[in-house]
């Protein structure tokens, strides 16, 4: 029982981490209909910027304080992500308005290549460290209830909290601010939004900026967990089933989807894996998403697809 709970908790926490990446997908798809395959590359890029600047800034300024260094690096990384967002909108997506989904998807794959290349050229391709002071050692809980207690990974726990915070602030941003409302208006109907004077170009830049920030947060959390390294960009593949399970257009969907996928894959790997040789979690996540899709083809919280002839 204790082990089951541990697995469950582990699944929930990695689910939250997937949601972080998934959020980036959803934000952009919602506002511009682009299925952004470059999200993984953006996570890597942001994490590389963060890792390298937190290394470089103390060297330039000649100071030791870890907190200040991280803060400055964060600010610089945010600025860089804004520039990246602006460039992507300006150079690529603006010219691809009204293309169909597949073309846009390919364009973002192209962008992913460019980002990977530039990121590694500027920041290097070694393995780097982000140290934001996350605790690494596990803690035991509920030792009185279960023998040996339940192992909780503090780092995961904090990461999940940060993810939750980010989601709440994004929801507030979307619901309560003027820009957020404009974003939702664009998401609902481009043309109607434009006709009431919402500038589409600017809105898209904003969306990409927000996605850039989520990528940065995801990059910092994953990076401090795994080390910043090229493989970070493959995280996107783990987040894809989350997105389609939750629905491409739903922010809460990304969270719930993340939790379902996280729990599903961990439980399957631990309880089913040993019977079939293990290593099943990645395809199991996709199969799970697929099964949900068979009942709700638009994802759990996606907008209903209505066909008209």
């Amino acid at each position: 029982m204790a082990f089951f709970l541990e697995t469950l908790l582990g699944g929930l926490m990695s689910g939250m981490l997937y949601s972080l990446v998934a959020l980036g997908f959803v934000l952009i798809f919602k506002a511009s209909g682009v299925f952004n395959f470059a999200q993984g590359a953006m996570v890597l890029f942001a994490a590389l910027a963060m890792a390298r600047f937190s290394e470089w800034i103390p060297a330039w300024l000649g100071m030791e304080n870890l907190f200040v260094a991280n803060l400055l690096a964060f600010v610089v990384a945010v600025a860089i992500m804004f520039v990246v967002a602006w460039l992507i909108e300006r150079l690529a997506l603006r010219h691809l308005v009204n293309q169909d989904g597949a073309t846009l998807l390919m364009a973002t794959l192209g962008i992913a290549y460019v980002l990977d290349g530039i990121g590694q050229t500027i920041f290097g391709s070694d393995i780097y460290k982000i140290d934001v002071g996350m605790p690494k050692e596990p803690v035991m809980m509920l030792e009185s209830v279960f023998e040996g207690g339940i192992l909780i990974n503090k780092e995961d726990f904090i990461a999940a909290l940060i993810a939750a915070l980010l989601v709440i602030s994004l929801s507030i941003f979307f619901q309560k601010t003027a820009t957020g409302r404009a974003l939702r208006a664009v998401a609902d109907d481009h043309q109607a939004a434009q006709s009431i004077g919402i500038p589409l170009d600017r809105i898209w830049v904003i969306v990409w900026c927000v996605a850039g920030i989520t990528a940065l947060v995801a990059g910092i959390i994953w990076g401090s967990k795994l080390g910043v390294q090229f493989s970070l960009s493959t995280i996107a593949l783990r987040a894809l089933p989350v997105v389609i399970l939750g629905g491409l257009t739903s922010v809460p969907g990304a969270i719930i989807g993340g939790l379902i996928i996280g729990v599903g894959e961990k439980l399957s790997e631990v309880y089913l894996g040993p019977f079939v040789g293990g290593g099943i979690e990645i395809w199991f996540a996709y199969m799970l998403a697929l099964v949900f899709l068979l009942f709700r083809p638009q994802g759990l919280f996606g907008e209903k697809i209505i066909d008209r002839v």
Partner: protein
Amino acid sequence: MFYRENGQFKTSYKADQQVFAIPQDRWAIFALVVFAFVGVPMLVDEYMFRAILVPFLILSLAALGVNILVGYCGQITLGAGASMAVGAYAAYNFLIRVDGMPALAAILLGGLMAAAVGIVFGVPSLRVRGLYLAVATLAAQFFCDWAFLRIKWFTNNASSGSVSVADISLFGWTISSPTDKYLFCLGILVVFSVMAKNLVRGNMGRQWMAIRDMDVAATVIGIRPMYSKLTAFAVSSFYLGVAGALWGFVNLGSWEPAAFSIDRSLQLLFMVIIGGMGAISGSFFGAAFIVILPIFLNQMLPLVGSLLGLQVSIALVSHVEFIIFGSLIVFFLIVEPHGIARLWATGREKLRLWPFPH
């Protein structure tokens, strides 16, 4: 001037509907094929054969398969690599488990097996559509990656999970030299291209296109979506399976599932979109672009560097290659979202009128 159709009058439907309605086209293609069979083997060195031409031919075949599904039937797939893997491993198993199995038959049977598996993985397309389907096909991709790594029977209990085949032979012709390999793949590609071209012109192809353009409307006029979608999956997977078997047997000789990973699937989708969706020739353009461009950049960049007096490290070359490759893809999509095939078609239209455009 040379590309005129003045005075060419079609007097029958048959003449009007043939594959290459204009004699110049017909002769040009015929000459090209003859050149590919006779001229290329005399001109090209071993490196070109092994590193560029053979991969190009096989990936063209695979791109053809993806194009049938994505370009003609409108079902985006990210699981093309899985079909190739099924083809390769099935062909391998037919070859080693059945005594006296000719290699060509094994390859074709591998294709058929891939078609059968493709139908199974195509079933979700009846319910799920668009990008959701694209991601769902990844399930097939990851499942196959896993299955060929884990299930020992598929790899004949090889301790490392990597399988290899000896040189194959065809009616007494042992395909071992690069030229042989090239000719063998070229032969298969030509046959399969002609088949594909006729398939998409026929009843089945028209059904696929109707489904692609608007599936609800197609259903209304009496096209069975299940039949046409699943046939598209089957035919596409057959092509991919044969390509996969060739990739394993002819190009690599020894392979592991990583040869058919998600990267391969994305690469194939790239080929189709860059080359031109819904155009047979697009598959070739796309394959050429994706196969040759990185190699070309990889060799060009140090050269450019040395001209500028810079010592370029291979890491930088590879990064710049990534950047240029990615930018070119975005550039192409912006300039011509319908792919190189459309560019080519536009060019041909212009050529028809040249040099007097009015």
